[in-house]
Protein backbone atom coordinates (compact mmCIF):
# COMPACT_ATOMS: atom_id res chain seq x y z
CA UNK A 1 0.00 0.00 0.00
CA UNK A 2 1.38 3.36 -0.98
CA UNK A 3 0.28 6.87 -0.19
CA UNK A 4 0.73 9.19 -3.11
CA UNK A 5 2.49 12.36 -1.96
CA UNK A 6 0.76 14.76 -4.35
CA UNK A 7 -2.63 13.28 -5.03
CA UNK A 8 -5.34 12.18 -2.65
CA UNK A 9 -5.01 8.54 -3.66
CA UNK A 10 -3.85 5.37 -2.02
CA UNK A 11 -2.57 2.84 -4.51
CA UNK A 12 -2.19 -0.85 -3.82
CA UNK A 13 -1.98 -4.15 -5.61
CA UNK A 14 -5.12 -6.23 -5.64
CA UNK A 15 -3.20 -9.22 -4.35
CA UNK A 16 -1.84 -7.31 -1.39
CA UNK A 17 -5.23 -5.84 -0.65
CA UNK A 18 -6.87 -9.25 -0.67
CA UNK A 19 -4.21 -10.62 1.64
CA UNK A 20 -4.65 -7.69 3.98
CA UNK A 21 -8.39 -8.28 3.99
CA UNK A 22 -7.96 -12.00 4.62
CA UNK A 23 -5.50 -11.43 7.43
CA UNK A 24 -7.64 -8.80 9.10
CA UNK A 25 -10.77 -10.86 9.53
CA UNK A 26 -10.01 -14.45 10.39
CA UNK A 27 -13.24 -15.82 11.77
CA UNK A 28 -12.73 -19.03 13.69
CA UNK A 29 -15.24 -21.82 13.82
CA UNK A 30 -17.06 -22.66 17.03
CA UNK A 31 -15.54 -26.03 17.60
CA UNK A 32 -14.01 -27.17 20.85
CA UNK A 33 -12.77 -30.71 21.14
CA UNK A 34 -11.26 -30.94 24.60
CA UNK A 35 -9.61 -29.00 27.38
CA UNK A 36 -7.74 -26.72 24.96
CA UNK A 37 -11.16 -25.33 24.05
CA UNK A 38 -11.35 -23.65 27.45
CA UNK A 39 -8.23 -21.68 26.60
CA UNK A 40 -9.56 -21.06 23.10
CA UNK A 41 -12.79 -19.58 24.49
CA UNK A 42 -10.88 -17.19 26.70
CA UNK A 43 -9.12 -15.52 23.77
CA UNK A 44 -12.31 -13.55 23.14
CA UNK A 45 -12.52 -12.45 26.77
CA UNK A 46 -11.72 -8.80 27.58
CA UNK A 47 -8.24 -9.63 28.83
CA UNK A 48 -7.04 -11.23 25.59
CA UNK A 49 -9.63 -9.79 23.18
CA UNK A 50 -8.95 -11.05 19.67
CA UNK A 51 -11.39 -8.53 18.25
CA UNK A 52 -8.33 -6.32 18.10
CA UNK A 53 -7.31 -8.50 15.14
CA UNK A 54 -10.80 -9.00 13.74
CA UNK A 55 -10.91 -12.59 14.85
CA UNK A 56 -13.49 -12.48 17.60
CA UNK A 57 -16.50 -13.76 15.70
CA UNK A 58 -16.78 -17.45 16.39
CA UNK A 59 -19.12 -18.62 13.65
CA UNK A 60 -21.29 -21.58 14.40
CA UNK A 61 -21.39 -22.69 10.80
CA UNK A 62 -18.36 -23.95 8.89
CA UNK A 63 -19.74 -22.19 5.82
CA UNK A 64 -19.06 -18.82 7.41
CA UNK A 65 -15.72 -19.47 9.02
CA UNK A 66 -12.17 -19.03 7.78
CA UNK A 67 -10.21 -20.69 10.51
CA UNK A 68 -10.51 -24.05 12.18
CA UNK A 69 -8.83 -24.17 15.56
CA UNK A 70 -8.38 -27.84 16.33
CA UNK A 71 -8.44 -27.38 20.07
CA UNK A 72 -7.84 -30.67 21.76
CA UNK A 73 -7.21 -34.32 21.10
CA UNK A 74 -8.80 -35.74 17.99
CA UNK A 75 -10.27 -39.13 18.63
CA UNK A 76 -10.43 -41.64 15.82
CA UNK A 77 -14.22 -41.36 15.75
CA UNK A 78 -13.91 -37.61 15.34
CA UNK A 79 -11.58 -37.68 12.32
CA UNK A 80 -14.25 -38.05 9.60
CA UNK A 81 -16.37 -35.38 11.28
CA UNK A 82 -13.43 -33.03 11.35
CA UNK A 83 -12.67 -33.69 7.69
CA UNK A 84 -16.26 -33.06 6.74
CA UNK A 85 -16.33 -29.78 8.64
CA UNK A 86 -13.11 -28.75 6.95
CA UNK A 87 -14.50 -29.59 3.52
CA UNK A 88 -17.58 -27.51 4.24
CA UNK A 89 -15.51 -24.42 4.97
CA UNK A 90 -15.15 -22.06 2.00
CA UNK A 91 -11.75 -21.25 0.56
CA UNK A 92 -9.51 -19.67 1.69
CA UNK A 93 -9.36 -21.58 4.94
CA UNK A 94 -6.74 -22.12 7.58
CA UNK A 95 -6.13 -24.61 10.34
CA UNK A 96 -4.42 -24.04 13.66
CA UNK A 97 -3.42 -27.19 15.47
CA UNK A 98 -3.66 -26.19 19.10
CA UNK A 99 -1.86 -28.09 21.79
CA UNK A 100 0.18 -31.24 22.08
CA UNK A 101 -2.59 -33.76 21.41
CA UNK A 102 -3.86 -32.24 18.18
CA UNK A 103 -0.33 -31.71 16.86
CA UNK A 104 1.39 -34.97 17.69
CA UNK A 105 -0.72 -36.95 20.12
CA UNK A 106 1.03 -35.53 23.16
CA UNK A 107 1.14 -37.83 26.15
CA UNK A 108 -1.25 -40.24 24.47
CA UNK A 109 0.56 -43.12 22.84
CA UNK A 110 -2.34 -45.19 21.59
CA UNK A 111 -4.47 -45.91 18.55
CA UNK A 112 -7.31 -43.57 19.44
CA UNK A 113 -5.63 -40.16 19.49
CA UNK A 114 -4.47 -39.09 16.04
CA UNK A 115 -2.40 -36.08 15.03
CA UNK A 116 -4.69 -33.83 13.06
CA UNK A 117 -2.20 -33.23 10.26
CA UNK A 118 -2.80 -36.75 9.02
CA UNK A 119 -6.08 -35.54 7.54
CA UNK A 120 -5.91 -31.75 7.38
CA UNK A 121 -3.26 -29.34 6.07
CA UNK A 122 -2.22 -27.57 9.27
CA UNK A 123 -0.88 -24.05 8.99
CA UNK A 124 0.33 -23.27 12.48
CA UNK A 125 1.20 -25.62 15.31
CA UNK A 126 0.93 -24.33 18.85
CA UNK A 127 2.87 -26.19 21.52
CA UNK A 128 1.57 -26.40 25.06
CA UNK A 129 -0.71 -28.54 27.14
CA UNK A 130 -2.89 -26.57 26.91
CA UNK A 131 -1.31 -23.52 25.27
CA UNK A 132 -2.06 -20.38 27.23
CA UNK A 133 -4.39 -17.95 25.47
CA UNK A 134 -1.42 -15.71 24.75
CA UNK A 135 0.33 -18.58 22.95
CA UNK A 136 -2.79 -19.01 20.82
CA UNK A 137 -2.85 -15.30 20.06
CA UNK A 138 0.80 -15.59 19.06
CA UNK A 139 -0.14 -18.38 16.66
CA UNK A 140 -2.81 -16.10 15.22
CA UNK A 141 -0.06 -13.54 14.66
CA UNK A 142 1.99 -16.21 12.92
CA UNK A 143 -0.97 -17.07 10.74
CA UNK A 144 -1.45 -13.43 9.80
CA UNK A 145 2.22 -13.22 8.93
CA UNK A 146 1.84 -16.26 6.72
CA UNK A 147 -1.22 -14.87 4.96
CA UNK A 148 0.40 -11.52 4.41
CA UNK A 149 3.52 -13.18 3.04
CA UNK A 150 1.34 -15.01 0.55
CA UNK A 151 2.02 -18.59 1.53
CA UNK A 152 -1.31 -20.28 1.88
CA UNK A 153 -2.65 -23.67 0.99
CA UNK A 154 -5.51 -23.91 -1.50
CA UNK A 155 -5.13 -20.35 -2.73
CA UNK A 156 -1.45 -19.67 -3.16
CA UNK A 157 1.50 -22.01 -2.85
CA UNK A 158 2.19 -23.29 0.65
CA UNK A 159 5.63 -22.43 1.95
CA UNK A 160 7.32 -25.50 3.31
Amino acid at each position, binding site marked *: MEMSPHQPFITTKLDEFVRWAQASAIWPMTMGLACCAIEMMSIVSPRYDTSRFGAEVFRSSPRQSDLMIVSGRVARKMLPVLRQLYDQMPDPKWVISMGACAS*TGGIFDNYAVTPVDTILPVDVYVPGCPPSPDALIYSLMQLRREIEAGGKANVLARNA
Partner: protein
Amino acid sequence: MLQAVGGIIAGMATTLKYLFKKKSTIDYPREPYPHPERFRGVHELRRYDDGMERCIGCELCAVACPANCITVIGAENDPQHPTAPGERYGYRYEIDMLRCIFCGYCEEACPTDAIVLTPRFDIADYTRDRLIFGKDKLLVDDPFTQHLANTESAFKTEPGVAPPPSGGAP
Protein backbone atom coordinates in the same frame (compact mmCIF):
# COMPACT_ATOMS: atom_id res chain seq x y z
CA MET B 1 -42.94 4.32 34.64
CA LEU B 2 -40.70 5.74 37.30
CA GLN B 3 -39.45 2.25 38.01
CA ALA B 4 -38.45 1.76 34.37
CA VAL B 5 -36.49 5.02 34.34
CA GLY B 6 -34.80 4.01 37.56
CA GLY B 7 -33.75 0.75 35.92
CA ILE B 8 -32.25 2.55 32.97
CA ILE B 9 -30.34 4.88 35.27
CA ALA B 10 -29.02 1.98 37.29
CA GLY B 11 -27.95 0.20 34.12
CA MET B 12 -26.26 3.23 32.65
CA ALA B 13 -24.48 3.85 35.94
CA THR B 14 -22.79 0.48 35.56
CA THR B 15 -21.82 1.34 32.00
CA LEU B 16 -20.48 4.67 33.12
CA LYS B 17 -18.50 3.03 35.90
CA TYR B 18 -16.76 0.65 33.48
CA LEU B 19 -16.14 3.48 31.04
CA PHE B 20 -13.75 5.09 33.49
CA LYS B 21 -12.23 1.90 34.88
CA LYS B 22 -8.82 0.76 33.75
CA LYS B 23 -9.06 -1.42 30.65
CA SER B 24 -8.44 -5.08 31.35
CA THR B 25 -7.26 -5.81 27.82
CA ILE B 26 -3.53 -6.29 27.49
CA ASP B 27 -2.23 -5.00 24.18
CA TYR B 28 -0.33 -8.20 23.55
CA PRO B 29 1.97 -7.90 20.57
CA ARG B 30 3.15 -4.53 21.83
CA GLU B 31 3.09 -5.33 25.51
CA PRO B 32 3.90 -8.65 27.19
CA TYR B 33 1.44 -10.60 29.28
CA PRO B 34 2.29 -10.73 32.94
CA HIS B 35 2.90 -14.35 33.82
CA PRO B 36 3.05 -15.94 37.23
CA GLU B 37 6.56 -16.33 38.52
CA ARG B 38 6.52 -20.10 38.12
CA PHE B 39 4.95 -20.20 34.65
CA ARG B 40 6.33 -23.14 32.73
CA GLY B 41 7.20 -22.43 29.12
CA VAL B 42 9.95 -23.33 26.69
CA HIS B 43 12.96 -25.17 28.06
CA GLU B 44 16.52 -24.04 28.03
CA LEU B 45 19.76 -25.84 28.74
CA ARG B 46 22.03 -23.98 31.09
CA ARG B 47 25.77 -23.62 31.36
CA TYR B 48 28.00 -23.07 34.34
CA ASP B 49 29.57 -19.67 34.79
CA ASP B 50 32.81 -20.86 33.18
CA GLY B 51 30.99 -21.92 30.02
CA MET B 52 30.82 -25.65 30.75
CA GLU B 53 27.54 -27.36 29.91
CA ARG B 54 25.55 -28.49 32.89
CA CYS B 55 24.02 -31.48 31.12
CA ILE B 56 25.86 -34.69 31.89
CA GLY B 57 23.83 -36.92 29.58
CA CYS B 58 22.31 -39.00 32.38
CA GLU B 59 18.89 -39.26 30.66
CA LEU B 60 17.00 -38.82 33.92
CA CYS B 61 14.84 -36.15 32.25
CA ALA B 62 13.99 -38.54 29.42
CA VAL B 63 12.96 -41.17 31.97
CA ALA B 64 10.86 -38.73 33.97
CA CYS B 65 9.10 -37.34 30.90
CA PRO B 66 5.49 -38.58 30.77
CA ALA B 67 5.15 -37.70 27.09
CA ASN B 68 8.49 -39.23 26.03
CA CYS B 69 9.41 -36.09 24.19
CA ILE B 70 13.05 -35.84 25.32
CA THR B 71 15.85 -37.64 23.52
CA VAL B 72 19.25 -37.60 25.19
CA ILE B 73 22.31 -39.32 23.84
CA GLY B 74 25.27 -39.03 26.17
CA ALA B 75 28.89 -39.37 25.22
CA GLU B 76 32.25 -39.54 26.96
CA ASN B 77 34.01 -36.25 27.49
CA ASP B 78 37.26 -35.58 25.74
CA PRO B 79 39.63 -35.32 28.76
CA GLN B 80 41.62 -32.52 27.13
CA HIS B 81 38.63 -30.42 26.10
CA PRO B 82 35.69 -31.42 28.26
CA THR B 83 32.24 -30.16 27.29
CA ALA B 84 30.80 -30.77 30.74
CA PRO B 85 32.43 -31.36 34.10
CA GLY B 86 32.64 -35.03 34.94
CA GLU B 87 32.92 -38.01 32.64
CA ARG B 88 30.00 -37.60 30.29
CA TYR B 89 28.07 -34.88 28.52
CA GLY B 90 24.88 -34.65 26.52
CA TYR B 91 26.07 -35.30 22.98
CA ARG B 92 22.59 -34.92 21.58
CA TYR B 93 19.67 -33.31 23.35
CA GLU B 94 16.34 -32.94 21.62
CA ILE B 95 12.92 -31.96 22.85
CA ASP B 96 9.85 -32.33 20.70
CA MET B 97 8.04 -29.18 21.75
CA LEU B 98 4.78 -30.35 20.23
CA ARG B 99 4.76 -33.51 22.30
CA CYS B 100 5.89 -31.79 25.47
CA ILE B 101 3.20 -31.01 28.01
CA PHE B 102 5.35 -28.56 30.01
CA CYS B 103 4.87 -30.40 33.28
CA GLY B 104 8.35 -29.56 34.54
CA TYR B 105 9.23 -33.12 35.60
CA CYS B 106 12.47 -32.91 33.61
CA GLU B 107 13.42 -29.83 35.57
CA GLU B 108 12.75 -31.68 38.80
CA ALA B 109 14.62 -34.79 37.72
CA CYS B 110 17.75 -33.04 36.55
CA PRO B 111 20.58 -33.57 39.06
CA THR B 112 22.63 -30.64 37.76
CA ASP B 113 19.73 -28.26 36.98
CA ALA B 114 20.76 -28.19 33.36
CA ILE B 115 17.24 -28.14 31.94
CA VAL B 116 15.06 -25.28 33.10
CA LEU B 117 11.63 -24.12 31.97
CA THR B 118 11.48 -20.44 31.10
CA PRO B 119 8.42 -18.19 30.89
CA ARG B 120 8.76 -18.04 27.11
CA PHE B 121 5.71 -19.28 25.25
CA ASP B 122 5.82 -17.76 21.76
CA ILE B 123 7.17 -20.58 19.66
CA ALA B 124 4.18 -21.47 17.48
CA ASP B 125 5.49 -22.44 14.06
CA TYR B 126 4.48 -23.64 10.62
CA THR B 127 6.01 -27.08 10.52
CA ARG B 128 6.50 -29.91 12.99
CA ASP B 129 10.18 -30.24 12.13
CA ARG B 130 10.95 -26.74 13.28
CA LEU B 131 9.44 -27.43 16.67
CA ILE B 132 11.86 -30.22 17.49
CA PHE B 133 14.39 -28.21 19.44
CA GLY B 134 17.94 -29.46 19.45
CA LYS B 135 20.90 -28.24 21.43
CA ASP B 136 21.34 -25.32 19.04
CA LYS B 137 18.08 -23.83 20.22
CA LEU B 138 18.00 -25.08 23.79
CA LEU B 139 21.53 -24.35 24.95
CA VAL B 140 21.94 -20.78 26.09
CA ASP B 141 24.83 -18.79 27.42
CA ASP B 142 22.84 -16.62 29.75
CA PRO B 143 19.59 -17.56 31.44
CA PHE B 144 16.38 -16.25 29.90
CA THR B 145 15.39 -14.19 32.89
CA GLN B 146 17.11 -13.30 36.05
CA HIS B 147 14.15 -14.20 38.20
CA LEU B 148 14.58 -17.83 37.19
CA ALA B 149 18.00 -17.80 38.73
CA ASN B 150 16.34 -16.87 42.00
CA THR B 151 13.70 -19.58 42.06
CA GLU B 152 13.99 -22.63 44.26
CA SER B 153 15.34 -24.88 41.56
CA ALA B 154 18.40 -22.73 41.14
CA PHE B 155 19.12 -22.83 44.85
CA LYS B 156 19.81 -26.54 44.56
CA THR B 157 22.79 -25.82 42.37
CA GLU B 158 24.84 -24.57 45.31
CA PRO B 159 28.21 -26.32 45.63
CA GLY B 160 27.79 -29.85 46.89
CA VAL B 161 25.06 -30.82 44.47
CA ALA B 162 26.72 -29.77 41.25
CA PRO B 163 29.96 -31.41 40.15
CA PRO B 164 33.14 -29.33 40.32
CA PRO B 165 33.01 -26.77 37.52
CA SER B 166 36.64 -27.14 36.48
CA GLY B 167 36.19 -30.49 34.73
CA GLY B 168 38.14 -33.71 34.86
CA ALA B 169 37.03 -37.03 36.29
CA PRO B 170 35.73 -36.75 39.84
